[in-house]
């Protein structure tokens, strides 16, 4: 193969594969395959076509996507478990704190503090999980979930700030609640409504 052909191949692989290590391997694989085919008498263009098709008929991007999915599958599973665990305790403590406050029993702030700390963790794990799965989601799904997570972070952090009488608590709560009331809740209820209409 000529120098220019090596460069052409490297540029093509570089355009489609962003991970450096994987790129080096794919480039070496394609070059090895083309060199072998050319030694057997094939011309560069047909050898190149065959090499790319044999390695990845659906395109090189598919290799990177599958590698990412395989590598993050276990992490994503752990992240989801943590998310549900924290979500359960957040709901439990916040609702218990609410009951204690309504009944004027002692200690509702401790329940609210613990519940909101768990809520903040839930939102952090949800955000990480969303980031890890971003390749498999549409732009609309990512936007909807991001707004939901952002409002959750502001509400839980705002409540914690309020408990400690730290500054910016009200503005955090106000923005978080506004997003929740005006965007998150209507979007989710509209989604549930659409699903029930489609199912009936």
């Amino acid at each position: 193969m000529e120098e220019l052909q090596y460069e052409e191949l490297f540029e093509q692989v570089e355009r489609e594969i962003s991970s450096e290590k994987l790129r080096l391997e794919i480039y070496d694989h394609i070059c090895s395959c083309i060199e072998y085919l050319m030694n057997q008498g094939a011309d560069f263009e047909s050898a190149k076509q065959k090499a790319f098709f044999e390695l990845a008929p659906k395109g090189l991007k598919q290799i990177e996507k599958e590698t990412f999915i395989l590598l993050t599958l276990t992490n994503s599973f752990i992240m989801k478990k943590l998310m549900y665990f924290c979500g359960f305790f957040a709901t439990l403590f916040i609702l218990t704190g609410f009951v204690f406050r309504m009944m004027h029993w002692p200690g509702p702030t401790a329940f609210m503090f613990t519940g909101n700390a768990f809520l903040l963790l839930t939102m952090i794990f949800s955000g990480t999980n969303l980031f890890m799965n971003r390749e498999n989601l549409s732009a609309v799904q990512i936007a909807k979930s991001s707004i939901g997570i952002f409002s959750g972070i502001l509400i839980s952090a705002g409540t914690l700030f309020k408990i400690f009488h730290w500054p910016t608590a009200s503005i955090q709560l106000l923005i978080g609640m506004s997003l929740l009331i005006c965007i998150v809740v209507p979007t989710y209820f509209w989604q549930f409504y659409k699903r029930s209409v489609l199912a009936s």
Partner: protein
Amino acid sequence: MYSKELLKGTLTTIILNLLKDRGRMYGYEITQAVKEKSTGKILIREGSLYPALHKMLADGLLSTHEENIGKRIRVYYDLTEKGKAELVLRNDELFSFFDTIKSILLPESKIYA
């Protein structure tokens, strides 16, 4: 040629066995060795080799070593101690699976013949 689904569950075991038999290997070499050993019946394509290699690397079953080959870098894979132990487990599991499948698919007279 066998279907992609059949190959999917056995690819890790195939790679582990090849590396045990031949020592360190690079990606293209692995695809050629599989093709050669299976007399062309198994072709690793559709991008399944590199995701599998990287997953095995992340799981600690393989180690890598890079070498300059002219103007490009070649990544060689080798078995780790964990990979060698995993190979034994996977081989046992696969052979036991073959026996079970045989006992399900073949009539009893043929199994004990």
